[in-house]
């Protein structure tokens, strides 16, 4: 495979923004391109990730294109998925060898609607949608399965939240303090569930020597893979994430020591499931960015995990990092990316 690296990353998140998608995106895309050192015309491919249902209107990516200066016309595509999958598409595109740089962005304003109700429209329309069940209910069923199997405790879940909130600068409440809160959807408490967040992110990928020219320490993508599972939660072992394990193996997570992992776990117990599926030992620093307990902008949260992992390679604070992104109810679909600095 051709060497491809992340050379810059920018993101913006907030609980609620009065800006539109373009107003949120334009400065973040600008920052990512500026800090990459590339001229815009060097970008040979642009790809984004978003979901029309967040704003309830078709073609949100069409309007967002105004933020990407698509003139003269650009080679461009869009996935109705988290931006981490857009990054995967860009990585594939760069493998072909005719272009050297790609821009990836993602956006979404979850605060405009009732996010649980919006995401419930992703469920099986015949068996599940008529019940009025939503993704949070599935997360709660999954958490109970973890507790029943003895794979974690409510305190373990609270500890994930406490660490994430601390690292995101949202306060120093301990796990025991968090556990005093009442259940929201037992066994989930509010701190186990992701905050509603508006957000955008942008990443610039560059191949080979051009990446080395632009940055003294590019974050090389040494492996990237993604897998999906069956949609019906009733046919799956909810306490395991075999798709994460498959993707991790294909991406080569276990080939060398991992310094840190950015795990996209919307619900606290899911971090425990994913961490195990990735095969990470206790020495690995998890989610130094704070992860989902800090901010969870739907459609860019996965791309931000990749960007945050890359940031720590780019700044020299880590040598080998793993990034993970998820989609669908109960961790149905998972992407794993291994990033390394220059030896």
């Amino acid at each position: 495979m051709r060497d491809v690296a992340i050379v810059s990353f920018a993101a913006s998140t907030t609980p609620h923004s009065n800006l539109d998608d373009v107003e949120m995106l334009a400065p973040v895309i600008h920052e990512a391109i500026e800090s990459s050192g590339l001229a815009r015309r060097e970008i040979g491919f642009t790809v984004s990730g978003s979901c029309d249902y967040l704003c309830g209107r078709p073609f949100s990516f069409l309007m967002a294109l105004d933020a990407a200066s698509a003139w003269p016309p650009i080679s461009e595509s869009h996935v109705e998925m988290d931006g981490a999958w857009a990054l995967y598409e860009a990585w594939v595109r760069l493998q072909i060898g005719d272009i050297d740089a790609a821009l990836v962005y993602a956006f979404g304003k979850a605060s405009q609607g009732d996010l649980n109700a919006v995401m419930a429209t992703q469920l099986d329309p015949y068996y599940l949608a008529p019940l009025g069940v939503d993704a949070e209910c599935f997360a709660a069923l999954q958490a109970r399965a973890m507790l029943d199997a003895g794979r974690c405790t409510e305190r373990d879940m609270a500890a994930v939240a406490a660490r994430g909130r601390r690292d995101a600068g949202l306060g120093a409440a301990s796990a025991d303090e968090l556990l005093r809160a009442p259940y929201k959807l037992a066994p989930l408490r509010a701190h186990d569930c992701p905050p509603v967040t508006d957000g955008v992110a942008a990443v610039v990928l560059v191949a080979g020597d051009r990446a080395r020219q632009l940055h003294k320490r590019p974050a090389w993508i040494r492996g990237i893979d993604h897998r999906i599972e069956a949609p019906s939660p009733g046919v799956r072992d909810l306490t395991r994430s075999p798709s994460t394990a498959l993707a991790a193996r294909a991406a080569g997570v276990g080939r060398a020591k991992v310094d840190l992992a950015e795990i996209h776990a919307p619900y606290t117990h899911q971090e425990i499931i994913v961490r195990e599926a990735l095969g990470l030992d206790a020495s690995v620093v998890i989610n130094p960015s704070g992860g989902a307990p800090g901010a969870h902008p739907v459609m860019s949260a996965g791309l931000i995990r990749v960007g945050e992992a890359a940031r720590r390679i780019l700044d020299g604070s880590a040598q080998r990092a793993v990034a993970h992104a998820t989609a669908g109810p109960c961790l149905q679909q998972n992407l794993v990316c291994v990033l390394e600095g220059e030896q």
Partner: protein
Amino acid sequence: MEGKQDPASPAEALSAPYVLAYTYRRSVGPVIGRFLTGLREGRIEGVRTAAGRVLVPPAEYDPETGAAVGDFVEVGAAGVVQSWCWVSEPRAGQPLDRPFAWALVKLDGADTAMVHAVDAPSPAAMRTGMRVCVRWRAERVGSVRDIACFVPDEGSGASEAPPMPPAEPVRGMLSPVHLEFTISPGATLSRFLEGVVEGKLLGRRCPACAKVYVPPKGACPTCGVPFGDEVAVSDTGTVTSFCIVNVPFEGQTMKLPYTYGSVLLDGADIPILHLISGIPADEVRMGLRVRAEWLPAGERRPTLESIRWFAPTGEPDAAYETFSEHQ
């Protein structure tokens, strides 16, 4: 006229409620259709996979191999809770209007679990491994909601479903979607629409390409940079092209037929779409000079609908060359 206010600051962004509501007409195909038909008849059926697993509710295709599924198998109306969670504040449209549990229930004879509600008095009455049984609805239509919910099994098992008169097999279902949003048009458009309430059309100039956009956007589409100076443009302009709409559609609010056109306002570099009126439809033409007819000041709201329509000014038509680049 140049605006003084910093156009980049999101002063008071507007917002408005928006409801996305539609009732979808789904066809369900043979497998789901047979399951739903069974429910209407008070019977729960699964399908057997090549490996011998019984899937309930029946998947159309084997989740492990993607193969087509095999024979239908009737399963019990009682089973075991595999996981559950407690809903203390039910939402409208859920199976119960008092606190209840969602559960994954593996029915007797099934190898997979189905999701449904359990009517239990409190979370203390719920535990993984407990037995539950179906409470049937009396009036059943061929829906997963024909199972009203599950209830803790006191040992007597599920009661028989009250009989329903014979009917055709289920082939479809109605599927309402109702989502409520609060939409903000963003800072730039909010500022523009505030101007509309005041009867002003405030464009913005791109600092890179110098073009004036009305309404302005979050960034210049060709340059990707935020817009700069505010520029008031005229409410007269030229029709560059148009369409006469004769077709009704769902959610339509306009009276048919109506004509709308691309109107290049004097001083702007991009046309806006708006209604053309005050002239018979068959006399609307490219190059027609028009002026905005505003609603009275007190009736204007932050939308371009505050301009009732554009009507002819009576000036001679603009020459094609003057607007041919704007279509």
